[in-house]
């Protein structure tokens, strides 16, 4: 029983350590003039057109980035498992490479590259999608890899081919539905990462949510803190949701004799 007490004390201590800054953000962002409470900082989020634009850009990037990474990875990884097993290690290496290359280093190499992107595709901040798909590559790879490992891909594909399905049908109607959970997980994670990304956007001079928040902080800390709290809570909601995804698969276990 002593262990139980210690366990709850530990949880409590960490709870305070991690919740205190969040609480402080809530307090700070509701300060008004002369010690009063006011929601000006919060309403400031929607009345600042630059901030609203930046939020919209980030949301579009989040959707585009996760779609791009899924479209790139799912057919490739499926095909490699089915037909090109020799490529599995090299592709895994490439996908996990961004872990070993800090974003701050990658951006040094991307700066000249984005001069070309700008030249060909224009200076829209949505071109950041390409950089973001790289940043989320390792996370998406791991999620999809786990999903593909959990199904008997070869047998499923052979069965579908035997019934006359084209490869496109195998991919879209057999593989995708069966790794649905992994795809949802990969997307949620990608969305969270893109919404929180600062390094690349800031150094390539694009106006995304986090860049705008940082800039705003210099003159109006209240709004910045309100947006920061909001985005942390939003990310928490996404990941909390994620913890229920794939519940069913883990459900079957624990037998007793």
């Amino acid at each position, binding site marked *: 029983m002593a262990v139980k007490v210690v366990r709850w004390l530990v949880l409590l201590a960490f709870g305070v350590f991690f919740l205190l800054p969040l609480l402080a953000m809530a307090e700070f962002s509701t300060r008004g003039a002369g010690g009063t409470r006011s929601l000006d900082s919060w309403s400031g989020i929607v009345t600042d057109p630059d901030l609203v634009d930046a939020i919209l850009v980030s949301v579009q990037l989040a959707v585009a980035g996760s779609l791009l990474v899924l479209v790139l990875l799912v057919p490739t990884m499926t*095909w490699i498992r089915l037909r090109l097993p020799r490529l599995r290690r090299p592709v895994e290496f490439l996908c996990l490479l961004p872990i070993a290359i800090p974003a701050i280093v990658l951006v040094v190499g991307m700066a000249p590259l984005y001069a070309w992107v700008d030249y060909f595709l224009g200076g829209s901040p949505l071109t950041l999608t390409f950089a973001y798909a790289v940043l989320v590559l390792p996370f998406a790879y791991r999620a999809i890899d786990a999903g593909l490992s959990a199904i008997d891909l070869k047998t499923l594909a052979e069965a579908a081919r035997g019934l006359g399905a084209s490869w496109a049908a195998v991919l879209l109607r057999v593989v995708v539905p069966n790794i649905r959970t992994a795809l949802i997980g990969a997307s949620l994670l990608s969305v969270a990462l893109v919404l929180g990304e600062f390094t690349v956007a800031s150094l390539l001079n694009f106006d995304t949510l986090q860049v705008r928040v940082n800039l705003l902080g210099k003159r109006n800390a209240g709004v910045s*803190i309100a947006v920061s709290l909001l985005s942390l809570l939003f990310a928490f909601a996404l990941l909390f949701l994620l913890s229920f995804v794939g519940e069913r698969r883990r459900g079957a276990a624990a037998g007793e004799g």
Partner: protein
Amino acid sequence: MVAPVANPARGDAAPGRRWPAWLVVVPFLAYVGVFLVYPTALVLIGAFQDANGGFTLDNVGALTRGVHLQAFLRSVELSALTALLGAVLGALLSWAVAAGRPDGLPRRVVVAGSGVLAQFGGVPLAFAFLATVGFQGLVTQVLRERFGVDLFAHGAWLFELPGLTLVYTFFQVPLMVIVFLPALDGLRPQWREAVASLGGNSWTYWRHVGGPVLLPAFLGAALLLFANAFSAYATAAALVSQGSPIVPLQIRGALTGEVLLGQENTGKALGLGMVVVVAVAMGLHALLQRRFARWR
């Protein structure tokens, strides 16, 4: 992207055109080539080039002297310290979480919260600490008004290394939870029961079985934490606006124009240095990880 492709080796009948199987992976490889391999190569090669593209060791040599060397030392110090703090505290929190029900609310909340703080943190974390212990932060005010304590009596520590240490720990602990919790879950209840039936107590178990089994995972996680702190940029960039005490901030300086003539490629050399340090840490991490995987 997955047009009918035939594999002659397996005699799969695809009427009409026959495309080589590797064609399917071309878009992926092309994309990764352009947006990952090319920029990486640019950094690694550029580190050894002078302004005219000729080979030189000057850029890399500059890392071994003066401000750059100091930045590396400070970066390593900051990363090692927060990795150690994060690993120890994170392991403790992991234990408290793992001891509960796997589908319980504490675990769900801690895991989701850890994901947010470890991977999403960045700029919002800097503002979280401004709101807490900044000049006008909640804790600063309460301490000043109620207890007469001035948090900033000894300078603007929050915007220097001590501040970075505190804020980094705030995202290192959650990262530790994420990577260490699965290792704790890998401890089999039979081991504890076997120790008990052989006459050992809880201490015997941790001393002879639980501890040694977890050690590689713990060290591996600590290395991952080190690499994570070493790579981190956003939090530091948002907090520290004056000077460049750590390497990522020096790279910012190199990118935004605080570069002296003849040192155009210093940023790339700094990048190379970071990649080397991170690669060493991640390589050791992978080794330890493999050792732990064998034991499960």
